[in-house]
C-alpha cells in the first residue's frame, strides 16, 4: 500500500471510498434523500454527483420503502446499490424492505439470489436533536438475521469497512455515528480523524480491534463509545489500572473470540453502548462471555448504556443519560475495587 496518507474525517473517508468503489465497478450506484446535489446531510456522498452524474448518484423522493425496496431489486440483478437512510431513526417507515426483503431474500432463494447492497445510515445523539433523530438502534438491527452490521469508530476503519461492505455479496447496514462523522456543524471526536491511505483497502468484518492493550479490565465499545472508553482508560492508567479497550467494529458478525480472550485475561468486563440498554448489545456481549465460561469473571460484568427512555431533547437530561468517560471510569474503578 502506498504511503500517501492524509488525516480524514469519517465522512470524507466514506465519500472517498464510495468514489473509488464506483470507479472500480460500474454496478455500484448511490441513492437516497439529499445525497446528490447536497452531497448527503452528513457529507458522506459529497462530490459524487459531479463525478458520476445523476444516473448513478440519485436523489430520491421521501419514500424509503420504495427506494430501499428498489435497492433490493437492483441488487438482485447484479447492481451494488449503496442506499442511504438519512437517520437510523427513520427505519420504522421502511423496516419491511430492510429486514423482510434485503435480509431474507438470499435465504429464501436458497442462495440463488444474493442481495449485495449497503444501507448507510447515521446514528447517535448528544447534540440536542431529540428522540426521533438521536438513536443508535444497534441492537434492533443486530438482532435480526441476514444483515451484516458495521460501525466504524475512525476514518481508517470507515474507508476499509466500506470497501468490504461494497464487495460483500450481502446486505450490510453501515452505521455512522454523528459525533464522529466530521461534519462542521456537529461536534467531532478528534480521535476519529486519522491517517487514511488513498487507495482502496479492506478492513474485515468480524474482527474486533484491540485499540489499547491492558491486563486489568476489558472495556468493550463500538463507534463513539470506543473513544469514551479510551479516554477513561487514560484516566484509569493514572490510577494504576491498565484497561484493555476493544472496538467491536461489526456487530454482525461479532468477534466473540477476541472479547472472550480479553476477559479471560483481565477477568473484568465492562461494555459501553449508547443504544438502549435492555435487550441490546450490552446484554449480548456479557452473555456471550458468560455462556462460554462464567468462571472467568473476577467480578460481575457491568454495562453502561443508554437507559430505557426515549431520548430527551434538553441538554441536562440528554447528557445525563448518555454514556461518558466519567461513568466508565467510575464503574471501572468500582469493579477494580471489587464492589
Amino acid at each position, binding site marked *: 500500500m502506498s504511503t500517501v496518507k492524509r488525516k480524514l474525517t469519517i465522512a470524507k473517508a466514506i465519500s472517498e471510498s464510495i468514489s473509488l468503489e464506483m470507479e472500480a465497478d460500474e454496478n455500484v*450506484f448511490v441513492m437516497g434523500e439529499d445525497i446528490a446535489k447536497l452531497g448527503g446531510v452528513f457529507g458522506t456522498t459529497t462530490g459524487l454527483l459531479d463525478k458520476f452524474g445523476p*444516473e*448513478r448518484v*440519485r436523489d*430520491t*423522493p421521501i*419514500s*424509503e*420503502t*420504495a*427506494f*430501499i*425496496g*428498489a*435497492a*433490493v*431489486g*437492483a*441488487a*438482485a*440483478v*447484479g*447492481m451494488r*446499490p449503496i442506499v442511504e437512510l438519512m437517520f437510523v431513526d427513520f427505519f420504522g*417507515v421502511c423496516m*419491511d*424492505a430492510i429486514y*423482510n*426483503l434485503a435480509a431474507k*431474500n*438470499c*435465504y*429464501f*432463494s*436458497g*442462495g*440463488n*439470489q*444474493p442481495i*449485495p447492497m449497503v444501507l448507510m445510515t447515521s446514528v447517535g445523539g448528544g447534540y440536542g436533536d431529540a428522540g426521533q433523530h438521536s438513536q443508535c438502534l444497534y441492537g434492533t438491527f443486530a438482532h435480526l*438475521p*441476514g444483515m*451484516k452490521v458495521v460501525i466504524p469508530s475512525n476514518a481508517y476503519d470507515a474507508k476499509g469497512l466500506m470497501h468490504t461492505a461494497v464487495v460483500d*455479496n*450481502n446486505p450490510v447496514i453501515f452505521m455512522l455515528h454523528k459525533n464522529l462523522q466530521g461534519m462542521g456543524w456537529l461536534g467531532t471526536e478528534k480521535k476519529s480523524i486519522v491517517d487514511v491511505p488513498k487507495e482502496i483497502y479492506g478492513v474485515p468484518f468480524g474482527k474486533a480491534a484491540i485499540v489499547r492493550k491492558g491486563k486489568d479490565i476489558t472495556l468493550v465499545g463500538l463507534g463513539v463509545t470506543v473513544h469514551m472508553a479510551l479516554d477513561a482508560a487514560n484516566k484509569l492508567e493514572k490510577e494504576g489500572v491498565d484497561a484493555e479497550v476493544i472496538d467491536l467494529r461489526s456487530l454482525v458478525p461479532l468477534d466473540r473470540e477476541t472479547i472472550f480472550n480479553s476477559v479471560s485475561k483481565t477477568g473484568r468486563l465492562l461494555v459501553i453502548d449508547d443504544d438502549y440498554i435492555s435487550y441490546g448489545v450490552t446484554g449480548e456481549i456479557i452473555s456471550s462471555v458468560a455462556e462460554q465460561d462464567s468462571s472467568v469473571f473476577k467480578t460481575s460484568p457491568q454495562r453502561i448504556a443508554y437507559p430505557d427512555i426515549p431520548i430527551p431533547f434538553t441538554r441536562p437530561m440528554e447528557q445525563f443519560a448518555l454514556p461518558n468517560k466519567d461513568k466508565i471510569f467510575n464503574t471501572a474503578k468500582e469493579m477494580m475495587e471489587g464492589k
Partner: protein
Amino acid sequence: MLSDVNTLQWLYGSMFKSRYYEECMEKAYLEGKQPVFNMANGPVPGEMHLSNGQEPCAVGVCAHLNADDAVFATHRPHHIAIAKGVNLKAMTAEIFGKKSGLSGGRGGHMHLFDPTVNFACSGIIAEGMGPAAGVALARKLRNEPGIAVAFIGEGAANQGAFHETMNLAAVWKLPFVCIIEDNAWGISVSKTDATSVPRNDVRAASYGIPGEYIEGNDPLAIYDAAERAIKRARSGQGPSLIEIETYRLAGHFMGDTEAYRPEGEKDELFSKDPIPKFRKHLLESGTLDETGLKKIEEAMYKEVDDAFEFARSAAEPEPIEALEKVFA
C-alpha cells in the same frame, strides 16, 4: 383482437395448467390435514393461497414477457409463476419443502425465487413493488432490455409501498408495470369496505401515468391492455397501472370457510369461470377443435403430474441445512 394461434394456445394452455396445478395442490395440501384440519400437518404445511379463477391476469400479462423481464408476485403466486415459466418441478419441490426445490425448501409457497426467469414472490402485502422498480432501474442504468412487472391484489393498493413505488417509478420513468388483480376481497374485507374508490385505475392520475381497468376477467382484453403498457415501458415512456377484474374461486387460503361472502356470490363466480369460457371461445371462433384442445390439456396434465411426481419423490433436505445460505 389477438388472432395468433400459437399465442391463443399458449394462453389457454397456461391457464389450464395453472388450474390443474392448483387442483393437484389442493389435494396434496389436504393430505394429513383430515379429518382435523391442522395447517402444520401433511406434505405441504403452512398457509396455501390458491389462484383458481385468476389465471387470465397471469397469462394475459406474461404472454408479453420474456426471461429478461422480471415479475414480482404475491402470497398468491402459482398462476403467475407458471405463466412466467418458472421451473415447474423445482417450484413444486419447493412447495413440498424438498432439497431439489427452488431454494432447497427454505422458501415454500410464498417465497418462490427463480432467477433464471427473473421471478420472485413474497408474503407481505405490496412488498414486491419496490424490488420490481429496482429491477426496472437496473435495466435502465445498464441500458439492458427487460422491464419489470409487479402483481399485487386490490387490497394491496391501499398499502404505502404501492403509492411510494408508483411515484418513484413515474418520476424516474422506469420500465415498470403494476398489475392489480382485483378479486374484490382482501381475505374477508371487501374492496368496498377497504378502498375509497371503486377502481384503482383512477389512482394512475396521482402519478401522471396511464391507468386502465379491465372488466370481465377476460384473457384477451388483459392481453391487449398489457401489450399497451408493456410497449410503453419497453420504449422508455415509463410506468403504467392496470387493474383487472378477476375472481377468487377458492378461499383466501385453504381452510377459509368464506362465511363473509354474500349468499350466491360463489355460484355466480363459478358460472363465470374464465377457463371453460375461454375454451368455448376458442372452439366457437374456430381457433381450436376438441382434439386440439384435448391435446393441449393432455400435455398440461402430464407436465403438472410430472412436477408433482418429481416433488413427491424428491429427497428431503438435511435438517442442518437450515443454517446454510443465510449469507452468500
